[in-house]
């Protein structure tokens, strides 16, 4: 797995321009700061030693005022650019992440927690912001600003410069020493935090179950304990982290104090507590005061490093999740793309197709069958026999591991997938409606369809009656599971989608399994209409729904074990008849 850090660094080029600007502006601000300190020292000097009147120093004061304004402007601009640097990265990362998820497809999504993925797409991406807008600019400035100050101070007073030069490197060295330990603790803390979140989600989703077993109030104690543990482990990390910054602070304070004392002693003509060999340079008040003003600025970026380190940690933890998603292997694109002609009849053959989700547990093991143009095929069998796998293969969500699926003689793998899917309609047990209006949802596959076309599709899907009864009609908003609509109504909206698409092959995946008789009848009528002149694959749980199929395929253990019409199969003493018997002991009806 790629290190999360690499993912973050790979995005740098996107931010580079803004980062450079931000650092440049920050550095400019630093230079102006030095100028400001110099002007200020001049004013105080004039004040102390020449007993200057206001008029004598206005020559210093006015430029000082201009400097203040300019610095405020630079500070603001630097902040803007730092934000922009992160903004570019966030926009690009989010788009890439989501498109990667799309490319990985529903088969991969099935093994994921969609809540966690949604979290990655929102908060996970936001968490990388601090890395670009705070940490990276701060790192550059930490090197640049103290260096600039040092260059200015060195020719003025080498003793102060020496003190700075000696104390400054101690700060990052010490930080790295302690930092590595903190980093380990911190990673542990992030894991604790993730575990706490997962536990809370688990409790929330299972609260009804807990309640049924009278365990929900016991759970309050568990939550108290977990929160308390989290507090204790956070404080363990923080105690070390704060100690680090305290030591940093001590170093920088000591540095400033030594510089101040040495300047003060020399101004007062006192002996300095340093070896005789070194003759301390003379110093004037104006230089001394100037250096004193610069000393805190010299240490400030180093001291701030600790704060930005936290942003880096957070970004890396988030990047770890993003890397995990972005490293999912994508199915390779077909080597040569074949295409079907527009009026291709769609003769589909499964030729010894095998597939397994986990090694050693085949979901399909050499399935062999065909769907002829215009034929109505029903696929029945026990759960786990491979029915849904057949649908997933046809829809192009997964690819055969052995054998091949051909469409009018072409290998399905080699077909342009979008062109192939354009010929399909799919109706699952729980079709998904999207945030938007009913019309938007019907238009899903054909965004440019006119309202008239939408209406016609709804009409054929037996959906006009209830849609037009809604106060807002086709403009009625619906939510993720079609809030406000019943299961049968949702099915019919989804069917209207299929009608609007005018697909050649319709795949029904237990589409009517959870409907009441009235809705089922309506949906069934719409499905019958849809089937006219089209091929249809019906995956069924309830045997009652498959009786008028042209052909019934019985699937078991990943193989087609029986095929024929209902009448033929019920005559034979095969798996089909056994299934019917098992489920419907009112034997007279079978």
């Amino acid at each position, binding site marked *: 797995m790629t290190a999360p850090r690499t993912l973050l660094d790979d995005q740098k080029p996107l931010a580079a321009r803004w980062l450079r600007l931000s650092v440049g502006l920050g550095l400019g601000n630093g230079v102006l700061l030095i100028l400001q300190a110099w002007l*200020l020292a001049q004013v105080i000097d004039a004040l*102390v030693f020449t007993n200057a*009147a206001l008029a004598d120093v206005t020559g210093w004061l006015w430029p*000082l005022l201009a400097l*203040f304004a300019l610095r405020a402007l630079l500070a603001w*601009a630097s*902040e803007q650019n730092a934000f922009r640097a992160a903004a570019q990265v*966030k*926009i690009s990362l989010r*788009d890439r992440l989501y498109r990667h998820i*799309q490319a990985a*497809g*529903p088969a991969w999504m099935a093994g994921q927690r969609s809540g966690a993925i*949604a*979290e990655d797409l*929102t908060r996970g*991406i936001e968490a990388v912001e601090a890395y670009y807008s705070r940490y990276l600019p701060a790192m550059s400035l930490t090197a640049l600003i103290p260096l600039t100050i040092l260059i200015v101070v060195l020719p003025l007073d080498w003793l102060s410069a020496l003190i700075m030069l000696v104390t400054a490197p101690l700060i990052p060295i010490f930080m790295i020493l302690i930092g590595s330990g903190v980093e380990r603790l911190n990673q542990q803390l992030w894991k604790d935090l993730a575990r706490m979140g997962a536990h*809370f989600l*688990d409790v929330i*989703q*299972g609260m*009804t*179950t807990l*309640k049924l*077993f*009278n365990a929900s109030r016991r759970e*309050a104690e568990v939550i108290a304990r977990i*929160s308390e543990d989290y*507090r204790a482990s956070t*404080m363990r990390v*923080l*105690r070390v982290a704060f100690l680090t910054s305290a030591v940093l602070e001590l170093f920088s304070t000591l540095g400033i104090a030594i510089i101040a*004392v040495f*300047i*003060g002693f020399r*101004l007062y003509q006192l002996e300095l507590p340093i070896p005789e060999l070194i003759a301390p340079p003379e110093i004037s008040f104006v230089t001394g*005061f100037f250096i*004193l003003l610069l000393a805190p600025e010299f240490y400030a970026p180093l001291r701030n490093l600790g704060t930005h380190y936290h942003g880096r940690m957070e970004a890396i933890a988030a990047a770890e999740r993003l890397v995990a998603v972005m490293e999912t292997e994508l199915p390779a694109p077909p080597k040569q793309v074949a295409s079907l002609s527009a009026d291709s009849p769609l003769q589909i053959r499964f030729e010894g197709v095998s597939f397994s989700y986990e090694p050693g547990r085949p979901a399909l093991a050499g399935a062999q069958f065909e769907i002829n143009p215009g034929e109505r095929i029903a696929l029945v069998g026990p*759960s786990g026999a491979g029915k849904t796998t057949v649908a997933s293969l046809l*829809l192009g969500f997964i690819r055969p591991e052995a054998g091949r699926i051909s469409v009018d003689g072409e290998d399905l793998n080699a077909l342009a997938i979008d062109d192939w*899917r354009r010929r*399909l309609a799919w109706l*699952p047990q729980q*079709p998904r409606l999207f*945030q938007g209006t009913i019309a938007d949802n019907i238009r899903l596959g054909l965004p440019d369809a006119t309202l008239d076309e939408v209406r016609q599709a709804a009409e054929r899907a037996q959906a006009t009656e209830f849609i037009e009864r809604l106060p*807002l009609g086709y403009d009625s*908003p619906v*939510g*993720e599971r079609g*809030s406000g*609509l*019943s299961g049968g109504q949702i099915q019919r909206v989804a069917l209207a989608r299929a009608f609007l698409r005018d697909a050649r092959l319709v795949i029904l995946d237990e589409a009517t399994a959870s*409907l009441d*008789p009235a*809705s089922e009848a309506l949906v069934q009528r719409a499905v019958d209409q849809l089937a006219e002149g089209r091929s249809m694959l019906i995956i069924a749980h309830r*045997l009652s729904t498959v*009786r008028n199929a042209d052909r019934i395929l019985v699937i078991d253990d990943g193989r087609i074990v029986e095929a024929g019409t209902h009448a033929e199969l019920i005559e034979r003493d095969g798996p089909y008849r056994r299934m019917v018997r098992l489920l419907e*002991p*009112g034997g007279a*009806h079978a």
Partner: protein
Amino acid sequence: MPELIRLWHLFRPYRGWMLGGFAVALITLLANVTLMAISAWFITAMAVAGAAGVAMNYFTPAAIIRGSAIARTAGRYFERLITHEATLRQLAGLRVWFYRHLEPLAPARLMAYHSADLLTRIRADIDALDNLYVRVLVPVLVAITAGLAFFVFTALFDLGLALLLLGMLLIAGVLLPWWGHRLGKQPGRRIVEIQAELRQAGIDGTQGLSELLIYGAADSHARHMDALSRALVAEQARMSQLTGIAQAATGLTANLTLWGMLWFGIPLVHDGSLAPPQLAMLALFSLATFEAVAPLPMAFQQLESTLTAARRLFAIVDTEPAVPEPTGPTPQPRDHGLSIEGLRFRYPSPVAGSGSGGSDSPDPGMSLGSSSSSGMHSDTKPPAILDGIDLELPPGRRVAIVGATGSGKTTLFNLLLRFWAPEAGSIRLGGEPLEHFPGEDLRRRIALVSQHTHLFDTSIRENLLIAAPEAPQGLLEQACATAQIHDFIAELPEGYDTWVGETGVRLSGGQARRIAIARALLRDAPILLLDEPTEGLDAVTERALMDAVQRLMTGRTVLLITHKPVALAQMDEILVLDQGRVIERGTHAELLKAPIYPRLLGLDLDA
């Protein structure tokens, strides 16, 4: 602002910690300002004395510099420790407080919330409250106290300069934060809204990925996400602009104060009412004082989001449970028979989407955004889910309920478990009204097996122990054997310690269901509610499981929801429910001749 007062009351138990944090923060700030001021005075005074060749006591100021440097370093360390300790303690307490208010609401009142939304509340919203203490409360108190001290100190030298300092501190500490809060409100709210839309689009775009791909809408959804992402960044840019302006303005105000000190101080020095080292000191002192107000603009800019988080928490905490707990003594039922009379019920709008009738748990997917559905339900009263049900269920009798989705079957179970209260009619348990039983006491007598049982993210053993915390291993295995799952568990490398749930081994629907049945067996309750216990299983497993369920039913009062003829044939009575009414009742054999019943079972299609 009422939120602030409520939060203040919630923070009451931690007041000692908060006061401590405030005191240390104040000391640290004062030490820092002292350090800057004395250093400036010291150097200038030394230079003046050195030039004039007069003696001065440099030990005292040097000692003060050392002392305040140490006080600042130590103070910063303890300030951080104490404020964080206080915050984390508060957060831990608040989480439990929130959970205790959340728990009575499940499942009835939580149906309208997405589980991700509740998770956000218990995690992120509670975490957001720490902002209030660390970034708002302590800094504001420190700024007020220190600001007054700074004013008095400067006034010792010159009242005019003191007033100048106070005015500038007020600009940076009051005017700028107020301005930031006012202008930050709108983008702050938009950011929260767009983030919610983005999360929704993320869930739509992952859970609905199949549809998007098949209907060729994947690319346009990706573009929709990208547009939201850009809109979010645009609002954040506005916010960042405010932050930038506030920060620059605070720095500018501090610098202007320094400048003003010099401008007005120099004449004072010139006419001798102020010594030069004193002005040098006051100049740097005034610059340093702005450390007290510097964090305020940011804090108030974000105050709105903190208060929004608080409002979201209070919204849950203030919700009344759907069913009040009785206050009287726990009744003693004479037996475990149930008797239902004239039972009527409807879900309150807008939660009552007709699509929700079939779900017995607060379906995590049922985020009926109140805004989106209100347009459709505003003037119609939601339909009755149960419309006058009568049912006599003496101890040991077995009754099945058959009906289409939305006919009210699962709702009846929810009423029996007292997750909801009936609108009219009564339910009695052993002659005592159901509403006289405390919830936990009632549920001790009932075991439920449904299609949606949650397996927790822990070991199989822990999942079983939820039902009977004290049960020995032998009992667990016996229950699992009855539920037809023991052999499967025994074959797993880690047996009963195998981790299940989201991060553990993925169990098939059937396997999870059988563990849930074992859990219900361990419960050993006299009343058994079964909600399509074999739905979605293949024929062979179903057969075996039905046998297990039959054994489980012996000697118990049973209500079974199913449409499986095998199971129905063995029940004492069957009720056919349609739109909240019993339309047919009798035994399996009798009902086969009725008009609706065979249709519901799919047995009529030959005809």
